[in-house]
């Protein structure tokens, strides 16, 4: 999506009216649409740029979805359909092939659709734009640039929705849960996996998922980086370099799947002048889920990268409730306390705490930047408000209940974790 430009033939007569506009039709947006419509906030319109709603779960062919939401196990595509039906049944409107170009004051959205470019104003906007995996470029991975270098989502989209196989025997970069999912996808498509490689000291995925590669006899190399990608038209191999001893080894493969390291799809907010939180790469939000742009909320993986579909669904519902409450009465918020990620903390959200109103977040949600065994603490003006022993690692949920923080005044909170690596 691009910055709005002067040349646009914008239709100024409103083609659409809405009380709440939701950008993105994944689990977060659909859950929020259903709840908002059910709460009677008026006209709820969800804008989805793709040709169908459902978001990323659509192309997760094998993962179990729907336990929390519908008390049954469903495939990703069926789950997406069920969420869509629920939103429609509640009275929400869904517009497909609608791309939001910009968030403007109002709040108002500038929207491109096959029928033309138009503006739509609302009383509130919810950004539920999701996340994407970090690319080869984002990691600055060395080597040539032949075909066969893709993200897991593209692999799964090709395999499950288009019945095509982009590669037969790739190396997978990353060891988060999504890497294990990629292994299953490759097997389902009649392919194999040459190896998993991880820059950290050990696999990121939890047990029992991390047992999958050894079970399938797929080598896992930790503490390594890509030194070279070889191949002229198609990938023919990768060279990996060991961080400790500098040794390099070559692995034959026909593709490189860059998996995980999810990053929020925050370009819309960034290009619209909203504040981006440095740690998450997503919108800076307060505990209502309000961004720095008035009337604009954000929820789901757009906030931080990957959480499960069920988590996003629940969050979408909570934020929907808060939007409805805020719309019903003035959201009386007295001041805001900043929350900073200190030593050892990759990110924390919400980045601001307010005193008044109903909250979307009862906890501070954070991630550690490394494998750490030590003391997690929250301080304010040098005073320790909270501390606890912690032994955890990257991409693990770490939550601090706000109710346990005896906050006084409006000085910023600093969260940090004492060293002592595990």
């Amino acid at each position: 999506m691009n910055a709005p430009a002067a040349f646009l033939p914008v239709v100024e007569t409103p083609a659409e009216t809405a009380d709440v506009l939701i950008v993105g039709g994944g689990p977060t947006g659909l859950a929020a649409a259903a709840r908002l419509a059910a709460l009677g906030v008026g006209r709820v319109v969800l804008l989805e740029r793709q040709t169908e709603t459902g978001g990323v779960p659509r192309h997760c062919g094998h993962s179990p979805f729907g336990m929390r939401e519908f008390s049954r196990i469903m495939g990703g595509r069926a789950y997406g359909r069920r969420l869509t039906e629920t939103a429609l049944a509640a009275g929400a409107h869904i517009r497909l092939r609608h791309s939001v170009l910009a968030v403007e004051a109002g709040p108002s959205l500038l929207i491109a659709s096959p029928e033309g470019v138009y503006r739509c104003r609302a009383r509130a906007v919810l950004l539920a734009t999701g996340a994407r995996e970090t690319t080869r470029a984002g990691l600055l991975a060395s080597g040539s640039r032949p075909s066969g270098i893709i993200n897991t989502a593209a692999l799964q989209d090709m395999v499950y929705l288009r019945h095509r196989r982009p590669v037969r025997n790739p190396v997978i970069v990353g060891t988060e849960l999504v890497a294990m999912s990629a292994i299953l996808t490759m097997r389902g498509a009649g392919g194999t996996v040459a190896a998993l490689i991880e820059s950290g000291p050990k696999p990121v995925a939890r047990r029992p998922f991390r047992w999958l590669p050894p079970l399938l006899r797929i080598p896992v190399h930790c503490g390594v980086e890509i030194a070279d990608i070889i191949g002229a038209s198609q990938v023919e191999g990768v060279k990996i370099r060991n961080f400790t001893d500098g040794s390099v080894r070559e692995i034959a493969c026909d593709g490189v799947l860059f998996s995980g390291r999810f990053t929020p799809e925050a370009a819309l907010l960034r290009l619209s002048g909203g504040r981006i939180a440095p740690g998450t790469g997503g919108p800076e939000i307060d505990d209502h889920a309000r961004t720095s742009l008035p009337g604009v909320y954000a929820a789901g993986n757009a906030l931080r990268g990957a959480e499960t579909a069920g988590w996003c669904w629940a969050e979408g519902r909570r934020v929907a409730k808060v939007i409805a409450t805020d719309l019903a009465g003035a959201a009386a918020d007295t001041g805001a306390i900043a929350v900073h990620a200190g030593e050892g903390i990759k990110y924390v959200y919400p980045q601001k705490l307010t005193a008044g109103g109903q909250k979307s977040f009862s906890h501070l949600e954070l991630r550690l930047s490394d494998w750490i065994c030590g003391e997690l603490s929250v301080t304010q003006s040098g005073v320790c408000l909270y501390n606890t022993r912690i032994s955890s690692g990257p991409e693990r949920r770490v939550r601090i209940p706000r109710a346990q923080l005896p906050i006084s005044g409006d000085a910023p909170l600093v969260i940090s974790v004492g060293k002592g690596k595990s």
Partner: protein
Amino acid sequence: MDIFDIAIIGAGAVGCAAARRLALAGCRVLVLEKGTDILSGASKANSAILHTGFDAPEGSLELDCMQAGYREYLGLRADFNLPLLETGAMVVAWNEAEFLRLPQLAEIARRNGVADVALLEAADLRRREPNLDPSALGALLVPGEYVIDPWSPFLGYARQAIAAGAVFSFKDEVLRGAFDGACWTVETVKARWTARHIVNCAGLGGDLIEQRLLGDASFEIRPRKGQFAVYDKAASRLVDAIILPVPTETTKGVVLCRTAFGNVIIGPTAEEQQDRDRPTVERAELQKLLARAEAMLPGLKDIPVTAVYAGLRPATERKEYRIRHEPDRHWLTVGGIRSTGMTASLGLAQLVARLILGKDSVPQDAPKPPVMPNLAEHLPRDWSTPGYGEILCHCEMVTDREVTAALASSPPPRDLAGLKRRTRCAMGRCQGFNCLGRLSELAGDRLAGLGEAL
């Protein structure tokens, strides 16, 4: 046997421009290209700057060709629907020694006929580029340096050449050849071709082609790698002009500029290497490049990198363009065309026509120039016109209508890379995370690089 007037070896920037010029002059033109597409060698990775020649060597052929090419581009671009981002450039001095060289650069620029340059004091510079690091001491403003689409012009030249009867043969590497006093017979991996003249525009293979066909090479290609990093579109609000360094004897140095597609690029590096085929990116060098960009424009620190790429420039043992004209053998080499080649290409095409045809050729006005699909972001793109089916690539806003048109165009894309360059699909910040699936469904059976059906 089918006899061509001219066989051009290499469909890079110079080969495409020369093919157009000669075909429009009424010649039967054959273009032999080793790669699967136009611009698949040295021309693949250029910085897309239309240079004025302000810092080119005085009186050089390079300067002549750049300025002729610059003028012709400005003259023809409207007919081809080619974009021009009128940024201007600033040669920024970051230390006292560089600052003291600016007046000298201004003097060279004026001697080169670029009269509108101006010296900017630090305060002036800051007013124009407020986001530049405050350590900048001053600059030489060169208003006529512009940014263009580095790809579409050459596709346009190739299309017009084809419309005028030129034949492009891809994946057709030249192996050997013989001249019988009137005609060249050229053996390639695909066929045996006959042509009266040969124009060697083989870029990184320029010396090898001379070796293979003439038996000796008049120069030696010393590939020089240039790596680039592309920042997210959000970066384009931080800088207006092309930011150039004070040039050294050997290189124009690392450039920071906006692209026609709405991004900001930093590059190229200048790394000598032996290999002519492997322009790899390297993490350590890219990190240095990013650090350099962020030192110049601190706001870039918060902006993600969208893409990285690298190319090889066909440098030789000498700085100047290498022209080998042997009328007796019906031979012309246009070699050693380095970073300025994109600007100079149309000027070099004029030179080629003059040398081969023995006179200044005036291109006919038929066939009409093709109207190229606009890929530049400051001008209307296809998505702003209603009636498309869907937007396939959301980062670069590419419609199904554009993809369908590109697949049906000539010369057609043969692989995903060719489609990407013709439409910008999968070139944005998600690098295909969202669109490769849909693209594989639409074009997977026709293009290499999109996998196989299950």
